[in-house]
């Protein structure tokens, strides 16, 4: 998947959300915010087809339902707020990763030999982003990607993510709470109000 394509949500309905429509152009970041429990994470899960939902998501001309689910998820990749790991060492989860990316997130290549059990929550979060990005998806769904990070690290991760997003032309849905972060990364900002998704601001 090298050609950049847009991500479109057509009448997606899940939980209390009804008929969500949204179009994310290649290389654009759309931030989603809203009170906790308003269904931000569930909306991302619906776009990744992890939960039964109404409506359809499109990646360019490819519909969600037209691909086998695992292929869709490999292209439209969801990074959850809390990551989970199945093997003992970090390296087993990151078969293809470049030292440059590791360095950009503040790791040395030795991290690949570390035990997952001794990672801090912030380290897990950064490595989970790397784990997703290293699989070369075509679009990203990020659920509070910097929730466990301090300010300096947050900036660093943001900068790395935004560079990669622009470079690859990924359309991105990014759940965020911090208005400052939204102002820094987003080209559009949507807020969940009750059962609807309302556009708050646009910077394009």
């Amino acid at each position, binding site marked *: 998947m090298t050609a950049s394509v847009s991500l479109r949500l057509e009448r997606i309905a899940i939980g209390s959300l009804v008929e969500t429509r949204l179009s994310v152009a290649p290389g654009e970041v759309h931030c989603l915010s809203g009170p906790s429990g308003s269904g931000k994470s569930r909306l991302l899960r619906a776009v*990744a*087809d*992890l*939960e*039964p939902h109404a409506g359809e998501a499109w990646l360019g001309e490819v519909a969600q339902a037209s691909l*086998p*689910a*695992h*292929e869709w*998820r*490999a*292209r439209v*990749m*969801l*990074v*959850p707020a*809390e*990551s*989970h*790991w*199945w093997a003992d060492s970090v390296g087993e989860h990151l078969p293809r990763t470049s030292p440059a990316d590791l360095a950009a997130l503040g790791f040395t290549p030795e991290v690949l030999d570390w035990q997952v059990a001794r990672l801090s929550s912030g380290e897990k979060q950064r490595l989970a982003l790397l*784990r*997703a990005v290293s*699989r070369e*998806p075509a679009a990203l769904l990020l659920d509070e990607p910097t929730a466990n990070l301090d300010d300096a690290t947050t900036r660093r991760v943001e900068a790395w993510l935004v560079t990669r997003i622009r470079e690859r032309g990924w359309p991105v849905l990014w759940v965020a709470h911090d208005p400052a972060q939204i102002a820094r990364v987003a080209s559009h900002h949507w807020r969940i109000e009750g059962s609807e998704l309302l556009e708050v601001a646009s910077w394009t």
Partner: protein
Amino acid sequence: MDVIALSWWQLALAALMVVALAGCTAALRLGMGRSLLIAAARTVIQLTLVGLVLEALFAAERLVWVALMALGMLLIAGREVMARQKRRLLGGWAFGIGTLAMFLSSFTVTVLTLTVIIGPEPWYRPQYAIPLLGMMLGNTMTGVALALDRLTDTAWRQRAVIENRLMLGQRWQEAVGDIRREAMRSGLMPMINAMAAAGVVSLPGMMTGQILAGSPPALAVKYQILVMFTITLGTGFGTLAAVAAGSRRLFDGRERLRLDRLAAPRH
């Protein structure tokens, strides 16, 4: 050599000792007396009844009756598999998958053993068919129940890991692979342990019975080896089928983990 006949008063002596054991546990407030006595009473009643049924079955020697008996055993085993699972699949799937897996493996292996290996005349001769099937079903039931229980319970507890693997674009088979392996292991482990310990740590019950009944030990050993192999085959293929079908049922057509298809545990 003939078997020494046992009379009811001799059994009563053994029963008296079980009652004494129940009395001791009651006196020590271990809370086991009641269930011990109930289980002992069930043994007496169930085995007496099955003795009567077998007497009739042996006398009749008709395929229909043997098949009916086999079906009854299978359904009871299926119910038992379902009852032994903490979080079982809803909508009859727990019973269906368990019963079908046991039917496919136990019945096929038993019929093959009877027709190809032992070869009694006729092949369904109840004296061979019923005990063989009983041993197969009993062990397959344990294997299938352990494996399905482990599968559903682990999937429940590791739901976040499975879903994270799905999010990374893995197929459902890959996302649940470790859990399937674990489930297979727990289903097969009792049988592998039994084979490894056979004759060294434990004298298998069937062989002991045959020797008590007057068979030469060499023949009893051959039968025991045959039975252990067939039981392993039945348990192995039964567990394999149950784990394959059970794990498939945990996911829907869009490869989503569907834990809403599991029942809440009962306490």
